[in-house]
């Protein structure tokens, strides 16, 4: 093991194939960030990204293992080692090409993937010290590609027309990845999106300061450039049904990637008071509808002075950090377990804390107090952790008579989402699980002939990369179906 740190970067388990470079030792190249005090007042991106020199310096830390475990850690098995090698060699286009073979949206994933649990956790260097900053390098390559003129960008080649037409429902990461892959193969593709803007959670959920909408927009432009048609304002299940797509509209196959967008509330008293938001509503008002620019943008948002966010995932962090930026004096985050169990990315937790979010661990809301219809406080009960539950995490339990009140004028519920039944109600022959998720086989085929599905609607709320992986896999299954 100690030989991992060897000058040549060689190790017994994974000697390099050829000494491409002399790997540098030491800590990761830090990524420049906007100062916490400053960024807490604006919606600009927090992390600035690597320069070419920084990306090269970080790439030089990679020892180019013979057995690159990082690749196994990636949910879509991107050839990480090769794109890093390309940077070492100074061939950025080659790096982008390798990356895009498996990931159509690297500038997005480089920003929002939980690399610390995936590729970076699996990196050989993580055993002894800091893993290669794969995510930051990925982001650098993605941004490099986006910065190029459209005709210099790494566009997947579109295959000869197959004469088949595919409909993709939903334009989140699952739908975008599926559409891109189907088009690459040579099928005609139309995306149907219920909202007025494409992108799914990337557009309405994840805030500007973490994922600039211009990046999402440019990635989507690339699909249009490839010949994918995007129809917004099309609510499948209402404007058209899945059946109508396949009959009247003449599509040969349909992919459903409509996400898990139905917000869950806790069912506690006071939840319908003014000032209580689902995270979805709060984030949609701010991100999709640009309420932070009100009144030049027409959609308002209730700007609380004291905001309590309930939950411990990325959605909770995004809500809390958005509330700070809208000018709240105090933002609390109430989570019923401890920080160790929080599902949010470590980086987000760290950023939230830097920006002034106050964490209240081991507490769970029992009631929301109000006066004249508006929120005045949140009553929470203290919790303690018991035995591990089905999820393997220790189950929180209420401590009797431990209730306390947090003064606040806004409460944001970020306690999860469920499948939206709008589409499936109008498609009774698509089998659902007891929780309303669509049942598929490994490849994404549903119980309805010619209809495939993937992303959060199948797995429940998960990650961008898993949704993209599912979309792409389903595209290949659709292709076999269409040829078969």
């Amino acid at each position, binding site marked *: 093991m100690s030989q991992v740190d060897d000058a040549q970067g060689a190790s017994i388990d994974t000697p390099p194939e050829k000494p491409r470079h002399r790997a540098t030792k030491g800590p990761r190249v830090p990524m420049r960030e906007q100062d916490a005090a400053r960024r807490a007042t604006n919606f600009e991106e927090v992390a600035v990204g690597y320069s070419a020199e920084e990306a090269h310096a970080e790439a030089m830390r990679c020892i180019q293992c013979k057995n690159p475990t990082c690749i196994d850690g990636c949910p879509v098995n991107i050839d990480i080692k090769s794109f890093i090698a390309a940077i070492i060699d100074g061939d950025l286009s080659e790096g982008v090409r390798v990356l895009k073979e498996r990931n159509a949206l690297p500038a997005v994933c480089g920003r929002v993937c939980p690399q610390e649990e995936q590729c970076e956790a699996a990196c050989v260097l993580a055993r002894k010290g800091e893993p290669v900053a794969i995510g930051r390098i990925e982001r650098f390559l993605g941004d490099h590609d986006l910065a190029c003129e459209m005709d210099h960008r790494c566009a997947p080649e579109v295959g000869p027309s197959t004469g088949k037409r595919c409909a993709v429902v939903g334009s989140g990461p699952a739908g975008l990845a599926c559409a891109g892959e189907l088009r690459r193969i040579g099928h005609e593709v139309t995306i149907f999106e*219920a*909202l*007025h803007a494409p992108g799914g959670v990337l557009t309405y959920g994840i805030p500007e300061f973490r994922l600039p909408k211009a990046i999402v927009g440019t990635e989507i432009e690339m699909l249009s450039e490839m010949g994918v048609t995007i129809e*917004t*304002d*099309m*609510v499948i299940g*209402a*404007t*058209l049904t899945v059946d109508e797509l396949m009959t009247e509209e003449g599509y040969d196959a349909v992919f459903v990637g409509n996400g898990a*967008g*139905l*917000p869950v*509330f806790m*069912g506690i008293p006071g*939840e*319908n008071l*003014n*000032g209580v*938001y*689902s995270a*979805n*509503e709060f984030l*949609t*008002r701010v991100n999709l*509808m*640009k309420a932070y*620019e*009100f*009144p*030049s*943008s*027409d*959609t*308002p948002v*209730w700007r609380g002075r004291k905001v309590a966010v309930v939950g411990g995932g990325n959605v909770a962090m995004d809500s809390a950090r958005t509330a700070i930026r809208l000018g709240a004096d105090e933002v609390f985050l109430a989570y019923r377990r401890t920080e160790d169990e929080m599902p949010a990315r470590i980086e987000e937790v760290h950023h939230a804390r830097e920006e002034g979010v106050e964490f209240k661990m081991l507490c769970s809301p029992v009631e929301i107090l109000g006066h004249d*219809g508006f929120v005045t406080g949140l009553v929470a009960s203290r919790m303690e952790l018991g035995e591990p539950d089905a999820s393997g995490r220790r189950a929180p339990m209420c401590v009797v008579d431990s209730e306390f009140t947090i003064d606040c004028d806004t409460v944001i519920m970020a306690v999860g989402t469920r499948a*939206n*039944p*709008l589409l499936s109600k109008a498609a009774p022959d698509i089998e659902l699980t007891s929780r309303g998720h669509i049942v598929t086989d490994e490849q994404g085929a549903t119980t309805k002939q010619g209809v495939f599905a993937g992303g959060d609607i199948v797995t429940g709320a998960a990650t961008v990369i898993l949704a993209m992986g599912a979309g792409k896999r389903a595209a290949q299954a659709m292709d076999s179906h269409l040829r078969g």
Partner: protein
Amino acid sequence: MFRIVHKRQLSDAVFEMGVEAPRIARKAEAGQFLMLRIDETGERIPLTFSDWSAEEGWVRFIFMRVGKTTHKLSHLDVGDEIKDIAGPMGIPTHVDDLGRVVVVGGGVGAAVAYPVARAMARAGNTVTVVLGARNADLLILQEEFEALGVELVVCTDDGSAGRKALVTAPLKEMCEAGTVDHSMAIGPAIMMKFCAATTKEFGVPTTVSLNPIMVDGTGMCGACRVTVGGETKFGCVDGPDFDGHAVDFEELMSRQRIYSDDERLADAEYSRECSCHK
């Protein structure tokens, strides 16, 4: 983009507008609504269909100029375009042969009441429409209702047209006569609340069409939460029609007020910019 193909001013502040939207027109049913966003910086607002033609591919809605969005909308004309329209949203009004049905339409609610009354009449019901407004100038669609051939009772608060009464007065009389099998109340929340209170006494089933604040209209945000029978429902996908006897109207009215300060501010700013007079 959706082209405006019809515009008619019904009163000082009330407009009827039609847009080309063939796919939506084919699906529209009484009681359903569309989500509309005028332009790139616009908000999304729900507007219930007042009429539609599947053959000609248009849908119509009626709106009152109350805030910035409806103000902007009132400035658009035939030939102009609206950026986004999506629908039909919501569950259609349950139309069945119920016997004698009283449809109450108050204020702009008359716009929604019109296709409901028409559908109820076509389904074989004996329909009475109670049309109410503050005064004669605010009364809309009277001729259209007359053309349906249904019984029509007009009331105004000040007696400038029809009876000088609130809509609840004729409603109560009909309930007392014991001839009402079902009632529908569509209008301002306060009116629906009193209609529901009136019919409850007589055990006459009453459907109301709620108008909570919405953002997406597809069940994705929960802005439209209403309490019905002690349970939280999403107005956009579980409604907009609900059992009037079970709705928490106080909560609905309170929730409708959340952004009233913001709305005033936005409209004041817009009025200054466009330098027109309301």
